[in-house]
């Protein structure tokens, strides 16, 4: 209760300071709460951007597809590299080198390959989400105590059983952590992709408002986008906590 009050006090102070600074400076550039909140209301009541739901749905769909692809490919590549020594030795270093490249340099190529529609955003979200998942699988495999595999073999476990009953539970926490990071990065990829060039989606709306200097609307759109991202991250962290309890 006291913590909640203290947090509220901090929030109120921050809002007040923001209001004061924005009014003294430039209300157009700094967008005080007295301008942002009505803009948020107009946005949510579909007055300023009546087609907000379809843009939001598009962004969420792009994120979902990009993330699903990242998970499938990340797990497949991670296990292939981690479980087959030859494959790992041949391709592991390439993967690490690619991961070191700032992914945003690929984005112009992705737009050229996939066009300005959803496909290029999905591709970018996938590219960003893929690496942390692959690397988490690799780290997770290394982290499983080899003795646990020896014991399972001694008791007659075949490779698939070892995978299901020893490897996956033994690395679950690391794996879920990587999948959480992957989700965050897929979200970033899709939204950055939309902002860099698109005709639809939350990023496109943000660009539109910003380009027309409708700064209050811009802030409101950012808040809605943040809420979506925060919700996805909270869900992921709940899953992660559960996995931690299970693995330890």
């Amino acid at each position: 209760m006291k913590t909640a009050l203290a947090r509220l006090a901090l929030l109120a102070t921050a809002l007040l300071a923001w209001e004061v600074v924005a009014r003294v400076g430039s209300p157009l550039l700094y967008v005080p709460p007295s301008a942002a909140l009505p803009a948020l209301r107009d946005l949510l009541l579909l007055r300023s951007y009546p087609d907000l739901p379809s843009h939001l749905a598009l962004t969420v769909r792009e994120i979902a597809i990009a993330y699903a692809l990242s998970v499938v490919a990340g797990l497949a590549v991670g296990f292939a590299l981690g479980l087959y020594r030859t494959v790992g030795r041949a391709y592991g270093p390439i993967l690490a080198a690619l991961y070191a490249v700032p992914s945003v340099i690929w984005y112009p190529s992705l737009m050229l390959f996939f066009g300005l529609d959803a496909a290029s955003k999905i591709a970018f979200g996938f590219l960003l989400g893929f690496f942390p998942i692959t690397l988490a699988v690799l780290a997770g495999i290394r982290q499983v105590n080899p003795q646990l595999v020896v014991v399972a073999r001694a008791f007659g476990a075949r490779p698939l059983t070892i995978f299901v009953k020893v490897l996956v539970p033994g690395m679950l926490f690391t794996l879920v952590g990587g999948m959480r990071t992957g989700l965050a990065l897929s979200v970033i990829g899709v939204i950055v992709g939309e902002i860099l060039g698109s005709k639809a989606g939350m990023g496109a709306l943000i660009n539109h408002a910003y380009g027309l200097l409708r700064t209050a609307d811009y802030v409101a759109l950012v808040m809605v986008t943040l809420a979506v991202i925060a919700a996805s991250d909270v869900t992921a962290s709940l899953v992660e906590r559960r996995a931690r309890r299970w693995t330890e």
Partner: protein
Amino acid sequence: MAAPLIAIEGVSRRYVTASGPVDALRDVSLSVDTGEFCTIIGPSGCGKSTLLGMLGGLVALDAGRVLIAGRPVSGPDPRTVATVFQDPGLYPWRTVVENIEFGLELQGVAHADRRRTATELLGPLGLRGFAGKYPRELSGGMRQRVAIGRALAVDTPIVLMDEPFGALDEQTRMLMGEWLLEIWRRTGKTVIFVTHSLHEALALSGRVAVMSARPGRIKSVLELPMPYPRAMESPEIVALRAKLWHEIREESARAMSDA
């Protein structure tokens, strides 16, 4: 004479390491009868664990053969052989009972049946009341008892023990030895026990096979016909201890100068 339960015949094994090939075992032969408690003792690195790994079907042979009940070992046979390792290798996400029933689960035993078997073992294992605990909540000795429980639950005629008490303090180790003897006498299993403790070998075994330093060979086999529990200060045991030490000393010294 009936064929022995376990027959190790002229077994060799060479490992290739960065600094060249290493002969872990050379021409090892040993046979063990049903119901025996046979100990293998020798200096570190003499290939004791390799030999046990061969019996468990986890390590391949370069030459010779290993027969169990007359059939050559070609891989793990979880219905005949169960192994207890020095590192108990318990699954941290499984409770005590879930760890004990692991082998049965792999064999496809129904949940209720394997749970009953595991629960019945808790008493003799001294783990009553710990069924739902996780390995991290147990002491070292208790963890090793869970690992022994996992090996007993599958009820194989043969149990291999690779320095099971090696990581425990001396007092716990002695108590665990007495406890194991009790279990062995009650179940009548054939036990092959690897150790480098003279005390353990003398207190527990019906026979002790002494291995030489690398390349490992069986140097000699001592019979210990004395009844259990053994008075460790009796003249017989003291004499055997001196004899055993004499055999091992040489090999340990050789192992030390090699290292």
